[in-house]
């Protein structure tokens, strides 16, 4: 870790090098470690220490960016001079509102010293016990166990300085038999909060229950989604339309649905970077404080998330959802999503289903068409036929092609328990419940 003081000094060094040019500095310093296992053995075990410095330098309304991972004086010199050269070559940007001023930030609890110090031996010890367990049952255990420390600072020449440090821990496992698999996943900022052994045992149970799957026909089914599968719905709806830029450009699923009841009244979705039940973060990558945004309230589409550019275009303030300066093409995006829980347990959802499918997870989901957020993908790591209120038998994986907006309109039960999950690329977290959805469209099967 660099610590707040050293981080602030690096930022000041860069601001000084910019002279009278307005400049913004984003510094991310990370120590990350990941232990990966497969075939009941550790086969990859890695650690990384890296810094990322991104500066945005302004010459009038022209903007130049430069990125580096060098913290030495010569590296900082080059960083600023490259940003200046880029600004000089660029054109005026009429959309950029200029650098934000200083702000007050709420304290968030997201750092755990024990997680920051988690050693390779500790991770290997935990993984070793799990692998022995899988081996004893004749199953093939695989997964990852990772811990990390992230320091994030934003500073600019208007006097803004924001600093935040957090830890992260993540455990994922896939258990395989000859003809089945089961998966579990959990995340948090305290490594001790992740119930590794019980997750592993649950994945084993799913893999064992899923043995000898039967082939079934594609078509429309009622589905019960675990939180893992629900997270995919939220992630894709976020990526393809919760940001205001896509709404402005007419390519969001929110277009023509603002203020409209487009989903079940059981569905409420919000983004809240300050909620301790998520992965709390006090500010975005422009240094703007995070605000809670109610995106869908009882089925009614209410608001996208904003950065300062879209806020200005839509006559409102930023909600604190700017991405990295180098990711402007991705627009503002939600990063701390919550889907409100309901009142059902997964068991109750299954018990009340006459005929349907219980889905552990979706895989390789991709956009087919944007305006209704039509997605195709596969089921994976546990798919079961539900008949007369019971898990009747495992089935072979199916391909679906389905509007996720329509799917959330067809929700008739929401789980009371939620799971915090990070997506496969990190930098985003969602706390989600299980769902029961009617008429989910499967378009292909694998024999």
């Amino acid at each position, binding site marked *: 870790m660099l610590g707040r003081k050293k981080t602030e000094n690096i930022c000041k060094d860069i601001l000084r090098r910019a002279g009278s040019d307005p400049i913004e500095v984003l510094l991310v310093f990370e120590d990350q470690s990941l232990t990966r296992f497969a075939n009941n053995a550790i086969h990859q*075990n890695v650690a990384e220490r890296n810094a990322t410095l991104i500066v945005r330098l302004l010459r009038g309304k022209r903007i130049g960016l430069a990125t*580096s991972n060098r913290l030495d004086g010569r590296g900082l010199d080059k960083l600023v001079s490259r940003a200046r*050269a880029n600004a000089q070559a660029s054109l005026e940007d009429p959309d950029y509102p200029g650098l934000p001023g200083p702000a007050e930030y709420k304290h968030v609890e997201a750092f755990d010293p024990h997680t920051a110090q988690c050693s*390779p031996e500790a991770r290997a010890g935990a993984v070793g016990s799990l692998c022995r367990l899988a081996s004893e049952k004749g199953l093939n255990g695989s997964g990852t166990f*990772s811990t990390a420390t992230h320091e994030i600072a934003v500073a600019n020449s208007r006097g803004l300085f924001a600093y935040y440090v957090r830890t992260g821990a993540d455990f994922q496992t896939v258990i395989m038999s000859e003809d089945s698999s089961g998966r579990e996943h959990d995340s948090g900022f305290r490594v001790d909060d992740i119930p590794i052994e019980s997750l592993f045992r649950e994945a084993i149970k799913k893999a064992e229950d899923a043995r000898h799957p039967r082939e079934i026909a594609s078509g429309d089914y009622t589905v019960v989604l675990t939180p893992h599968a629900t997270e995919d719905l939220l992630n894709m709806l976020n990526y393809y339309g919760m940001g205001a830029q896509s709404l402005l450009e007419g*390519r969001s699923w929110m277009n*023509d649905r603002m203020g409209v009841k487009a989903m079940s009244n059981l569905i409420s979705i919000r983004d809240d970077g300050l909620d301790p039940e998520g992965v709390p973060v006090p500010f975005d990558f422009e240094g703007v404080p995070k605000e809670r945004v109610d995106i869908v309230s009882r089925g009614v589409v209410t608001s996208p998330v904003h950065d300062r550019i879209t806020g200005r275009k839509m006559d409102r303030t930023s909600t604190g959802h700017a991405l990295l300066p180098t990711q402007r093409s991705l627009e503002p995006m939600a990063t701390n999503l919550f889907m409100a829980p309901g009142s059902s347990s997964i068991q109750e959802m299954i018990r009340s289903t006459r005929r349907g499918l219980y889905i552990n997870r979706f895989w390789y989901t991709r956009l087919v068409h944007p305006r209704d957020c039509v997605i195709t993908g596969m089921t*994976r790591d546990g798919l079961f036929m539900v008949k007369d209120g019971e898990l009747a038998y495992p089935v072979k994986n199916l391909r679906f092609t389905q509007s996720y907006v329509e799917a959330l309109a067809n929700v008739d039960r929401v789980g009371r328990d939620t799971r915090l999950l990070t997506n496969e690329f990190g930098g985003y977290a969602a706390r989600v419940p299980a769902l029961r959805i009617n008429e989910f469209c499967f378009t292909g099967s*694998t024999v």
Partner: protein
Amino acid sequence: MKTLIDRALNKVQMGGAQYTDIRIVDNHTESIRVKNGVVESLNSSESIGFGIRVLVDGAWGFSSSHDLTPEEIERVSQQSLVIARASARVPGEPVDLGPPVNWRGSYMTPVGIDPFKVSLEEKLDVLLAADREMGRVETVKIRQGNLVFVREKKWFANTESALTEQTLMETGGGIIATAVAESEVQTRSYPTSFGRQQVTAGWEVVSEWDFPGNAERIANEACALLTADSCPADTITTVILGGDQVALQVHESCGHPIELDRVFGSEVAYAGTSFLTLDKLGHLRYGSDQVNITADSVRPLGLGTFGWDDEGVPAQSAPIVENGRFVGYLMSRETASRLGKVSNGCMRASSWNRIPLIRMTNVSLEPGAWDLEDLIGDSDSGIYMETNRSWSIDDKCYNFQFGTEMGYEIKNGKLGRMLRNCTYTGITPDFWNSCDGVCNLKHWTMWGTPNCGKGQPSQIAHTGHGAAPARFRNIRVGVYKQ
């Protein structure tokens, strides 16, 4: 660099490692994005660092850092040993790397014009000229263009005496027109989708691509797609795929399942496994006799073209599918030795901070004999589809579904009405066995895929795929209910 390399190798060997390698990578990337006439992003990026990979007591450890100082080399060397010893507490099969790898030398991507010596103004002029051309078409709401230039210097050394130095250069770019109507959004991209085409070459390819000369055409196509007829629903028909779509089809349904680490289960927790299990090697009829697929790291322009892979194994070419028969995998030293073979040089890391994994180099469908006009002329009915819009494949690379930006009906040997929202789906070996025509070298292009994800922590690889248009029979199209 040599001093730092020696310090690291000595430190780790003294600490008891059986094998050690170190990579130092210095990457410079320049990227320019223009959107609706505004320079959205003009970024110069530098990333430098080193990674040390060690084998101790038969188990791997890897540690890396951005801080290229003697003190940090000491810390990271020590940490890599600690990590490897921790790995050894949960051991798998003993690691056998096969014969030593001790190549020495240097390699540089051949470039005509160094893109880093071309002025920013000249680069912006290309994108802004294309933007103006797209702007002539009123219905186009979003006009985008981008250029990317990469120069990566890489030093590799191991305790078997290998020492290589490489400078790899890439140039990429593309333009995109998005038209929006009441409830429809349609996009056309050039030269291909996902933002850009990318190759190992210099600035000279940018003028060959001629963005301004193609801008108004794709803008008009995007607009025409708004009101084009939809792809026929749930129909079995003949499909002719454009070369860039064939390239992605090869990537997903051949490139990934031939990764031998997937076959051995190393990627179960993330990407998945492969339907191309060991019993199929040399036996499976993967495709029709029209289908010949090669993996190489030597072809000009390919994003998988280099001097040595990240284990120091020299660039080479290997058959994967010969006249339809599956004959080869992409291999590392460790996985090859498990088959009694030697590596064919496919270990690649996305940067200094990642371990090398088995990655595609240039996995290409070899050209056939057809002219595209003749292939269409030989087809009574069907659909021509080009430029990928959507791609999804299962965890064994067996069940896939793709969508394309644009299609045309084929009727009586001619292209007819334009079709929007085209999709097709299939099972990998069934699909490739239905191939009855591949276009010739005149239509063959080395396409670049600069966004291939794999591994945990995630790695993005740049892979090459030579491909020409090809015809497939009895394909299910129109999966998406409209």
